[in-house]
């Protein structure tokens, strides 16, 4: 059999294909984005789509499952918050074809707005959850999740996290097996799927019975594995936490949980009896620990020493469990003394001049999730809230209602094109309906940028690069009742400032659309073509070293210390330098320079 190195996410895609999945839907989000793209790129037997948000993706997958197909939906942890409304009732209706929900957590918030522990959804919503530890398990668990889904008539979670989703390890490949369930819809099953109170009460019982049966199943589930070594310490763990602990304490005994909900209570009780002291190692919440302690089992160590925040690692597990006996490596250089390297907007990015304009206007900016969130960081510091997708629109409206006329001219909301379609339409509709006066700016860069260029309903292409309808944001604004819709060219800072000023001062809702400002990394949109010159350089005869151009935080521009003077005798402490390898000629800095010291250069 063929063995390949695969990323956890690619292994999930492979598992879906081998399991005979027919429909897969997702909204991108780190660390889950690669799953759907990998399916689209490699497995033509599976229909794949980027849905506008996780809720729609959940609906699509469940519709396909009710029609008898094996279906999969994938998202990051916060995506489940959006999809939860559908999920919480799907666990009652059940499915027909197997349905698996992939939810990818991000302990240590490498790229997220919070650090929630998705295991809680399984307990809360009453559905089973599997948790793989490496790529082989990602594939195997995905496949068995479909079997469990069909056997118990329930959606099944597969929870990953950054160190599983984005870790590569060997995977043995197998063939695809088509599902044995016939496709088709049966109107006679309506009582199972129409969740009105009388039917809900009947299904409620089914849900409880299902969870009881699943608990029995968990006790003999082949991926809940007992590894007896030295019985003086027994560890209960899952996923990456198991791997870290096994790495530093290979001599101990283990109960590795492949199914993290429902818990195999009998198996846990038996394991606890076999070992002298019980340790529970889990990332984030004391999920296992709360349950195991409630069973009356004595726990030697759990969250009393294991952190409840951020991600675990071999050294954190070792230090937590060894306490004072842990010997840390010698510190040669203090990392905190080194300059940090936070991510930054790309050279030429259209968000940079727009946020510079907002900063100059002193605007309070209600933000959203995307690359533009980086405008929060110094020196730009031009974005003031980030909560969830679409939040800025609703928050700006609320703030304006609170501030009244005092707020006019001082507040706006920014959303990306992808996030506007994800959750931004309802807040805009609301601002019009409730006679608000907020200004909403859609930073349309023609793609879902931050997660690595996923298509969406406004990009003009499907996940498989087939041309398709493109949402017309102006027509949407009109249909929602927005009277004042303006287009701006963010690269024209002065013109942008004038329009922003006018619109924010208006006592009615405004919609501002960025035109012709595609993502710098989106090659098909030829983002560089509109720039007159390929590169700019500093005229050292003119640069006074005023540092004004550094305020935009362009990665191509840096400060060079060195006393000197301009051609006309102005003393300076240094000059700026434009790196020709990074400059793309966007002319944003040219507009900011007061001394005409930034001039066309040569590549």
């Amino acid at each position, binding site marked *: 059999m063929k*063995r390949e*190195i695969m990323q956890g996410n690619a292994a999930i895609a492979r598992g879906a294909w081998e399991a005979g999945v027919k429909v897969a839907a997702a909204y991108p989000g*780190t*660390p889950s984005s690669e799953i759907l793209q990998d399916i689209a790129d490699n497995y033509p037997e599976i229909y794949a789509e980027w849905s506008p948000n996780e809720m729609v993706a959940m609906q699509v997958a469940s519709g396909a499952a009710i029609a008898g197909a094996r279906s999969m939906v994938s998202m990051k942890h916060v995506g489940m918050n959006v999809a939860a409304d559908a999920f919480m009732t799907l666990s009652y209706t059940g499915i027909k074809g197997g349905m698996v929900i992939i939810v990818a957590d991000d302990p240590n918030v*490498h*790229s997220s707005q919070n650090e929630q522990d998705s295991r809680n959804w399984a307990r809360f919503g009453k559905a089973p959850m599997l948790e793989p530890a*490496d790529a082989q398990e990602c594939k195997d668990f995905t496949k068995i999740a479909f079997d469990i889904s069909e056997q118990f008539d329930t959606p099944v979670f597969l929870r990953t996290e*950054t*160190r*599983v989703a*984005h*870790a*590569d*390890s*060997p995977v043995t490949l197998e063939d695809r097996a088509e599902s044995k369930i016939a496709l088709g819809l049966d109107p006679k099953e309506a009582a199972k799927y129409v969740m009105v109170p009388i039917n809900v009460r009947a299904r409620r019982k089914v849900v409880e019975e299902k969870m009881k049966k699943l608990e029995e199943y968990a006790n003999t589930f082949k991926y809940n594995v007992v590894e007896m070594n030295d019985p003086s310490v027994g560890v209960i763990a899952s996923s*990456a936490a198991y*791997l*870290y602990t*096994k*790495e*530093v304490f*290979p001599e101990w005994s283990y109960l590795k949980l492949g199914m993290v909900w429902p818990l195999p209570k009998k198996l846990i009780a038996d394991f606890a009896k076999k070992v002298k002291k019980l340790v529970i190692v889990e990332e984030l919440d004391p999920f296992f620990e709360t349950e195991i302690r409630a069973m009356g089992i004595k726990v030697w160590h759990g969250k009393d020493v294991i952190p409840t925040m951020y991600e675990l*690692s*071999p*050294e954190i597990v*070792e230090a937590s469990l060894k306490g004072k006996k842990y010997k*840390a*490596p*010698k*510190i*040669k*250089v203090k*990392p905190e003394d*080194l*300059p*940090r*390297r*936070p*991510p*930054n*907007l*790309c050279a030429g990015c259209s968000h940079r001049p727009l946020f510079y304009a907002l900063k100059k206007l002193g605007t309070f900016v209600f933000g959203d999730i995307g*690359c533009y969130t*980086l405008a929060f*960081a110094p*020196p730009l510091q031009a974005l003031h809230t980030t909560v969830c997708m679409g939040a800025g629109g609703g928050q700006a409206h609320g703030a304006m209602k609170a501030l009244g006329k005092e707020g006019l001219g001082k507040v706006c909301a920014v959303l990306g094109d992808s996030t506007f379609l994800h959750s931004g339409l309802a807040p805009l509709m609301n601002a019009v309906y409730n006679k608000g006066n907020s200004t909403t700016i859609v930073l349309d860069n023609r793609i879902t940028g*931050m*997660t*690595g260029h996923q298509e969406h309903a406004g990009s003009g292409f499907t996940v498989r690069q087939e041309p398709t309808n493109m949402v017309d944001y102006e027509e949407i604004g009109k249909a929602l009742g927005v009277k004042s819709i303006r287009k701006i060219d963010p690269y024209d800072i002065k013109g942008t400032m004038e329009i922003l000023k006018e619109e924010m001062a208006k006592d009615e809702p405004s919609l501002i659309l960025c035109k012709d400002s595609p993502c710098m*990394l989106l090659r098909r949109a030829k983002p560089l073509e509109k720039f007159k010159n390929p590169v700019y350089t500093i005229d050292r005869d003119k640069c006074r070293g005023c*540092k004004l151009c*550094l305020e935009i*935080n362009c*990665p191509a*521009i*840096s*400060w060079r*210390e060195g006393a000197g003077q301009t051609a006309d005798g102005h003393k300076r402490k*240094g000059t700026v330098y434009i790196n020709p390898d990074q400059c793309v000629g966007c002319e944003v800095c040219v507009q900011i320079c007061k001394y005409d010291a930034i001039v066309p250069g040569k590549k």
Partner: protein
Amino acid sequence: MNKNGKTTNIFLSGVGGQGTILASNILAEIFLKAGYDVKKAEVHGMAQRGGDVTTHFRFGKKVYSPLIKYGDVDFLLSFEELEALRYINWVKPEGKILINRQQIFPPAVSLGNMAYPGDAEKTFKKYFKDNIRMIDGQGVAKQLGNAQAANVVLVGAFSNFFPDVKETAWIDAIKGLLAPKLHDLNVKAFYEGRKAL
């Protein structure tokens, strides 16, 4: 190479866009083909926006953790000087280090608020003596006509740390991972890097 059956830990560090991922993919191919269990972990997400990127790569008979334990790095391959310094504490006292002679200024340095720590080589020499080597990956790649191949130049230089791995294994892995039109340039880049150290 891990004669006592222990897992070998390789840490790669650099800046988004430098090609650290290709380098770690080459390592993964080689050691999988050589019959080892391998694990590789990297943080994606915002890395392509110029942030720092790291990859943990491990190979051995059976590898559990995808992350290297702090202080347990056998080999550090760094694509940028500051990003080498940032992880100096991760390297074992007897660990070996290869650093690309490149300085990419982070925002605090570009803005003139902090100085770039230009003493990476000196600091590593102090603690690791002759186990630290420097190479000008961009310089070598530019001579071949394409600075983009600097990452494979570094892989070529790094290959000297693994005398048991045959030269053909490296070439096969590079060819297997890159489109045919890129083979000539990158095979040359590998050899130049291998010679340069």
